């Protein structure tokens, strides 16, 4: 979120954003006019808030193109790039109308003649990732679910990482089995505690669901353009630094998020 906030703060435009799950970060990028195209498998905040009104507004009016791939096809696109091959064969998406959306092609198995889908490698220009801990050489460890982050780091041309915690090289060497991104992949590393807030980091802080509820209630009350416009002014452009941004939530709220995470993952 810290890196997305910086993209917004710099008023970047014309971006294509690829991530298999898109949430408020995608909504803010759409509303700010930063993205032309979103490549994703699913976009909304979560079950209680229904279909994203921000996404509907931008996609239904043609302001943003939404290119849809399934989770596995998406994952294999990053994995193919991470492996340095042009595509990976798969069974997923075959026969569905998703095949034509992103232009997935089929190939014939040279051994059996069976039809397979060929998930094309996806090489992003830049990967923006957030990790649990890293050393100053950029060796990164991720606690909890690893999503597709390790493949994304291998697939991208430039890799920019924010980390919750900066640890010594010795600390990384003590648990090398937990390192998922080696330092030689990483171009830039930024120490940013609470760097995913109001979203979560495994065992460190829970997502701020109250914040999402306030945000969506304001969209329901005042409409997408006004509500998200004001949100961007207040949470992105007004605070000079990320710490100032966190200050808008206050220490007590951040502590509550930490306590909730400790209760859910006590043994980290």
């Amino acid at each position: 979120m810290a890196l997305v906030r910086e993209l917004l703060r710099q008023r970047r435009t014309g971006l294509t954003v690829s991530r298999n799950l898109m949430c408020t970060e995608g909504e803010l990028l759409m509303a700010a006019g930063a993205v032309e195209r979103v490549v994703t498998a699913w976009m909304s905040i979560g079950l209680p808030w229904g279909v994203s009104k921000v996404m509907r507004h931008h996609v239904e009016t043609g302001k943003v193109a939404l290119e849809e791939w399934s989770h596995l096809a998406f994952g294999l696109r990053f994995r193919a790039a991470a492996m340095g091959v042009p595509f990976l064969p798969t069974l997923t998406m075959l026969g569905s109308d998703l095949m034509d959306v992103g232009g997935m092609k089929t190939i014939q198995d040279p051994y059996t003649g069976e039809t397979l889908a060929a998930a094309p490698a996806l090489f992003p220009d830049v990967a923006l990732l957030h990790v649990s801990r890293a050393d100053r050489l950029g060796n990164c460890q991720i606690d909890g679910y690893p999503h597709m982050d390790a493949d994304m780091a291998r697939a991208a041309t430039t890799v920019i990482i924010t980390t919750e915690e900066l640890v010594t090289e010795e600390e990384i060497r003590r648990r090398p089995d937990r390192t998922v991104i080696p330092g030689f992949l990483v171009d830039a590393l930024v120490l940013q505690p609470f760097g995913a807030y109001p979203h979560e980091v495994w065992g460190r802080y829970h997502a701020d669901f109250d914040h999402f509820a306030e945000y969506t209630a304001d969209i329901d009350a005042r409409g997408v353009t006004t509500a998200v416009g004001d949100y961007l002014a207040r949470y992105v452009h007004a605070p000079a630094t990320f710490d100032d941004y966190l200050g808008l939530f206050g220490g007590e709220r951040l502590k509550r998020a930490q306590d909730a995470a400790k209760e859910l993952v006590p043994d980290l």
Partner: protein
Amino acid sequence: MSGAVTPSELLAVMGSRQLQDDTTVFAGVGVPLLAAALAQQRHAPRLTMVIEGGIIGPQIRPGRLPISTNEMRAAHRAQMLPGITDTFLFAQRGFLDYGFMGGAQIDQFGNINTSVVGADYWKPKVRLPGTGGANDIASLCREVIILTAHEKRRFVPRVDFVTSPAWLGGDGSRRQAGLLFGGVSRVVTTLGIFGFEPETRRMRIEATHPGVSPQQIRENTGFPLGEAERIAVTEPPSDDELSILRALDPERRFLG
């Protein structure tokens, strides 16, 4: 048991009965996950739940139901967190017995649309959240069970967009598309339980819930429905099933 049975409770109970012990199930958050958790607590203690955020073998804590497929509550006491890609590769390899999913729009061949309403994908009348892992689950699980409210506007002759393939156009078209196994076996709704004719793969009535007539089901379905040789009547939810279910969701976030 006090209180009338809500539509979500009916779906969760009827869905849970479809799951056998010692199997694996891909479950979406909400009612499908509640149904799987109910089965696990009642008749299928060795059921392994898999959640598409990349979570294998979680145990659902009462009152701590996840609202998304990747948050800490979804991973409570999980056995493995392999990442999203590798989680779905277990399904492609054939290790997932059941896929448990909902759907915005479903057609007579069981195909589901959760992408767009309208004829042109790039100019949608209504843009929906998208496949997520639904397409993968429908393509790669050995057996898919759909849980959905039974409404005429959902049950359409042909979906606007096939996000998740079931039997495609029927008559072997799923196999011809390259999908080696799987397909939708059951559609569990608030009115009854449905299967598919073995050859044509068109949907047919297999059971009605107590007090529901086949006539009433037809009136709420946008395409002609066949009938199994014998139409059964389901057992209503038991006190035992309802009390386990209600304990799982005491705030009634998903049970309605």
